[in-house]
């Protein structure tokens, strides 16, 4: 008998496959919003590993998303078709395999970027990480804008619409499963230890830098996957999509849900994706509301909206 969590994982995959069979009957706009909900859940849950469980502060999640989106889109646009033609494969199975490979490649390249950014900044205190990741997000945009083979400032267009309900929610289930399993494993207790007290964790013999880098790389990997799904759902990407505002949106989801509370973060991701759809007239003031929300939450309810258990006493620093 499989453990409960793995049954849940398989059930979600099966259910999303089932829904996909009938997705032709669903209103396309509604389907798009639902896919965005899924993509945002992946982003928020993966950022929660870094910002919530490990207690670091990354402001560049959209940068990793951009890396993943560009990598996977480049593969399905430029690399995939000639490759499939060369080995003489076509049909649903071939495109599915190609898309899966593109997504994973996007995730891996994003993880590599995470490693490159994480190693220098994570040796130091969290404040530096915030600045370095913010700077990284900007640099990524500058680079993509200057690379003409990736469309420059116009970005990539005409990306094949491979992202469907099945892929989105399979990866949602995978992300949640991997991150929850990781944090609850023996090894994963290290993340919480780094969050609770870095000095004490180090005194216990934990390599805190390695834990931080691993959390960062895993977070970046799933952000890359989410970027790939996003690109193949919107069918066009440009550097401006993955700006600082996008990173902040993800951060707000994590903080609203409660840092280190996966269920809360999922609820917050759903809420913050659906709310702007219903509140079109005030979408203009979205960022102003987000920023006020951040301040008020920190002053009155730092454990997030969806954390009901009594918060641990914070050590005075």
């Amino acid at each position, binding site marked *: 008998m499989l453990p409960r969590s793995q049954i849940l994982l398989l059930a979600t995959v099966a259910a999303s496959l089932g829904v996909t069979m009938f997705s032709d009957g669903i209103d396309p706009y509604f389907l798009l919003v639902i896919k965005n909900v899924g993509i945002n859940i992946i982003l928020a849950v993966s950022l929660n590993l870094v910002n919530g469980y490990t207690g670091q502060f990354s402001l560049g999640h959209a940068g990793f998303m951009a890396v993943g989106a560009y990598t996977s889109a480049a593969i399905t646009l430029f690399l995939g078709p000639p490759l499939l033609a060369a080995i003489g494969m076509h049909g649903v199975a071939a495109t599915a395999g190609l898309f899966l490979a593109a997504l994973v490649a996007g995730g891996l390249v994003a993880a590599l970027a995470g490693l490159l950014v994480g190693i220098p900044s994570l040796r130091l205190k969290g404040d530096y990480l915030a600045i370095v990741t913010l700077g990284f997000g900007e640099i990524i945009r500058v680079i993509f804008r200057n690379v003409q083979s990736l469309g420059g400032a116009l970005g990539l267009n005409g990306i094949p619409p491979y992202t469907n309900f099945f892929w989105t929610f399979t990866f949602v289930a995978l992300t949640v499963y991997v991150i929850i399993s990781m944090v609850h494993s023996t090894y994963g207790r290290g993340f919480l230890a780094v969050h609770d007290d870095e000095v004490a964790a180090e005194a216990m013999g934990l390599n805190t830098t390695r834990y931080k880098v691993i959390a960062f790389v895993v977070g970046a990997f799933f952000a890359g996957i989410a970027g790939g799904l996003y690109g193949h759902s919107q069918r066009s990407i440009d550097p401006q999509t993955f700006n600082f505002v996008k990173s902040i949106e993800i951060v707000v989801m994590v903080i609203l849900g409660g840092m280190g509370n996966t269920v809360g973060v999922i609820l917050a991701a759903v809420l913050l994706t659906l709310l702007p759809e219903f509140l079109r007239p005030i979408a203009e003031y979205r960022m102003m509301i987000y*920023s006020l929300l951040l301040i008020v939450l920190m*002053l009155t309810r730092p454990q997030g909206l969806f954390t009901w258990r009594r918060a641990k006493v914070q050590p005075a*620093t």
Partner: protein
Amino acid sequence: MTEFLQQLINGLSLGAIYALIALGYTMVYGVLRFINFAHSDIFMVGAFAGYYLGHYLPAENLGCGLLILAGAMLICALLGMTIERLAYRPLRNRSKLNVLITAIGVSLLLENAGQFFFGAKSKAYPSLFPVHNFTSAGGIVLSSNQLAVFIVAILLLVGLQFIVLRTRIGTAMRAVSFNHIASSLVGINNDVVISFTFGLGSALAAAGGILYSVNYQAIDPLMGVLPGLKAFVAAVLGGIGNIPGAALGGLLLGVIETFVNGSRYSTYTDAIAFALLILILLFRPAGLLGKLQVEKV
């Protein structure tokens, strides 16, 4: 050679502005040990304060220009102290992450409120100081705005050094930054000192904002983001928490950036600061003038 000297002058005048902003970061870090993200937006508010005050006074007049500068510095000092009182002080004993998130929130709030009240479009900045270009025998051009940057920056730096080293409040500032528990034991009111530090840092940011806008002649509500980040890099470069270090880091960064901008790699100018930050974090995390501190429990 002329080219080199000209670039050096341009670089130093940009660097002097970075130095003014970096001082605010470094002083607040000194007393509170946190990065005040909202600082770059106070820089923006300073520029806008100068823009609106400029409507009421004649342009291109030295006296009026200085008056506007002083007015904007006062407005921003009050703004900085208000932000500290409302947003940061209630979180004084909470975890660092909470304060950091609040600071990011304040920064975003200022940017978006700025877009709401000032309009998101960029505005042409009036010439607050008399405009004149001084040309030397070798053909090196020094504009009056650059001269104003140098004079104002030097005066403010000397004034700051005087406040920090020679006055009672400056001594208290150094005491709080050294050990805030011991300083309150000897009767220093930490709240007053921290408030004063925010006021002082914000006033310098406002001066930086006006000098920057006078040189670049266009302002918008998001103008603070990039100079703010670069000034932060300058503060880290010099050693965060170290006042002469911030000035040195600012000048150095300004010069490096100007030379890169003049070279073939000019499209990557904005990335230089971050590359520099990563290098300094790898090889000398305490900064050029800072001392490496070991965390004690």
